[in-house]
């Protein structure tokens, strides 16, 4: 337990470091892709080429992913400042969100299914 109390924060600090590098790259090249996503791609490459061994970050990553919802509570709470948006006509936004979600789900799924089936038949 005490062991984890040291390892997990250290590994999260390492992830933070990668995030900062990603942010640095974003600023350097003036990219519109968020620094965090650049950091994610970077870490994927580092893991794939075995530059970073899995064990070095594994526990911190597992911890973060398991408790992912925790990290966005403060931002979600911010809705109290914007609750008025969903009043009246704002209710429409919920419908728009749902309709768009159905479209994504069906189209992305069907295109993939069609391509996979064609491969399986070939």
């Amino acid at each position, binding site marked *: 337990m005490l062991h984890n109390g040291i390892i997990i924060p250290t590994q999260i600090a390492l992830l933070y470091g990668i995030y900062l590098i990603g942010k640095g790259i974003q600023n350097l090249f003036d990219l519109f892709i968020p620094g965090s996503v650049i*950091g994610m791609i970077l870490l994927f490459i580092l893991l*794939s080429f075995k530059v970073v061994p899995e064990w070095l970050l594994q526990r911190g990553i597992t911890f973060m992913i398991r408790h992912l919802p925790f990290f966005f509570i403060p931002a979600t709470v911010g809705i109290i400042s914007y609750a008025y948006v969903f009043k009246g006509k704002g209710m429409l936004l919920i419908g728009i969100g749902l309709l768009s979600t159905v479209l994504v789900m069906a189209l992305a799924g069907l295109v993939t299914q069609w391509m996979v089936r064609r491969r399986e038949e070939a």
Partner: protein
Amino acid sequence: MVLTIVSYIASLHLYRQHRRIYTTPVIISTLVVIVFLLLFQVPYETYMIGGKWIDRLLGPAVVALAYPLYQYRKVLKEMFVPIVTGTTVGAVVGIGSGLLLSKWAGFSNLIIHSIVPKSVTTPVAMSISESTGGVMPLTAVFVMIAGIGGMLIHPLVMRYSGLTHSVGRGVGMGSASHAIGTAASMERDALEGSISTVAMVLSSVIVSIVAPGLTLLLL
């Protein structure tokens, strides 16, 4: 910050005992924190003095998503073309339909920018929203609508669209309903769940690349 941690841990316990959609920890803890702030009339700004420390960890949390992508690299390699194509279609449809529908309904650009990244996981959606001029808390709500809504609607979509293949189902779920949908897929079928994980992470990369350009084009 202590308040957030306490309410999160409490809601986690509640969720473990009663697994229901409405007991999802984010929803319960958010409600608890909001009720607390309203009850004691604490302004959001005051709460965020401590809250911003948690907020800062969103970046590294996104970085951590590289790990599931790495774990499923075999699946990704085998089905690379169909998964990437399907996810890209999903990204374009998600951004396009959200944007055009809300524009057509006459909502302000601030709201449109907040709805655009709704189909990707919260931390990424917030980063996108922030960099394109949306409002992060609004985006969080739209992400929630896409996640919970998609999870509930998924069986219907599958039945009426003839989506029967596990790989197709996984891509559909991951690119529309991110982590919440992925969790539901995982419970149904391991292959569908891992494809959904891959699609969710890929989708956050693709959406963050496509969103700014497509928004400029359509708005």
